[in-house]
């Protein structure tokens, strides 16, 4: 008669502990599988194609960050280096620099997303009396 609460509590406890761990492991495993399949696919491609693809992806993210007004100088520097390396036939450098540029551009996009709301924290708060100000439109 007392077996039901015992079992249910044990089950809930175990599931609460195991679920997050399983989900993380599952996510790790699936990302590993994704990476492996990407590597398999990439190994069949020409280095020039890989470099061009990496550079195109980096440019896409850089252009998006520039559009958002948050482009980073070093992302552009890495893009220029990658473009130069590609034109010189140094595909290894081109891929490395393009990946670096892509990583920086992704970070700048994350910064742009964070700035959407965080910017308000970086301006001194209005005095209490003035907080009942009329609605002021904000730029998008």
């Amino acid at each position: 008669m007392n077996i039901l609460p015992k079992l249910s509590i044990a089950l809930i406890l175990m599931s609460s502990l195991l679920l997050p761990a399983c989900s993380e492991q599952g996510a790790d495993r699936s990302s590993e599988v994704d990476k492996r399949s990407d590597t398999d696919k990439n190994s069949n491609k020409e280095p020039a194609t890989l470099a061009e693809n990496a550079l195109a992806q980096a440019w896409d993210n850089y252009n998006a960050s520039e559009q958002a007004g948050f482009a980073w100088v070093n992302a552009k520097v890495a893009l220029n280096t990658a473009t130069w390396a590609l034109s010189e036939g140094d595909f290894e450098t081109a891929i490395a620099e393009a990946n670096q540029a892509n990583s920086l551009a992704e970070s700048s996009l994350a910064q742009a997303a964070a700035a959407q709301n965080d910017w308000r924290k970086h301006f001194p708060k209005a005095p209490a009396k003035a907080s009942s100000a009329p609605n002021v439109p904000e730029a998008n």
Partner: protein
Amino acid sequence: MFTLSALSNLSRPVSIIGGIIVFSYVAIISAPVFAEPTTPGPIVASPSADRQAIRAHYERRFPGIPVEAHKDGAYAIDKKAGEQWLELEDFPPYEIAVDEGEDLFNTPIGDGTYSDCFGDGAVKGQYPYFDEDRSEVVTLELAINDCRSKFGQPTLDYKGAEIVRLSAYIAFVSRDQIINVAEPSSQAALLAYNDGKRFYSSRRGQLNFACSSCHVQLAGNRLRAEKLSASVGHVTHFPVYRLKWQDVGSLHRRFARCNQQVGAEPFARQSPEYRNLEYFLTYISNGLPLNGPAIRK
């Protein structure tokens, strides 16, 4: 000691309560996975409240230094550097630029002259302003090029020396005018103002700094050997002769350099972003006298 065997002896209501507690625990730890990112509600203030807030901030941060003293930038808070600066002012290196600007100002442009647009040139106090018809912020440099266009002349390059010299002369003859930018009242003007305020407060670049990081939160601290100035007063003394540049440069050139220093790609001079930033900075400096051109390191 609390063990599972002890749990089996619990009565049904207690086990139900226990189940609820465990379920809550599961819900809490899994919540971040499913939750939407929270967005704080709009925290907007009127421009006059912003101005009060930033002035109050500097009054608290620099007790004993009147807000108006920030017209001299970092020299208001760095006494020794201020003394050196005053000595430099005995033979100011921007004088040549002012003289060249005067010559340019008096040179006819097509069928007209700059005087037809700016009278005697003492007009810097009128800029920037929000032009309701054009629905954009008009700065002095923009107005100079508008004047040229009016007389059929090609516009000047905003990176070029000519426009900086002209604005140096206009700044010189406008000294001691009090900044009095009209409070943005229309929706379009408020949008431009808030765009400038947002730019000022947004972290950017690989170093993840906003303008306000240095000039509000860290104002008065040292960045290497230099003290960080307050934003109130930033616009009073431009264009400036910067020792680093060995030349007179515009406010937007300084904006661009600041952006680059934190690793952000700069915007073009006289871009809407920088004009809105200038509009915002000038509004919060209302009440301060113009004292440009000046010398800066």
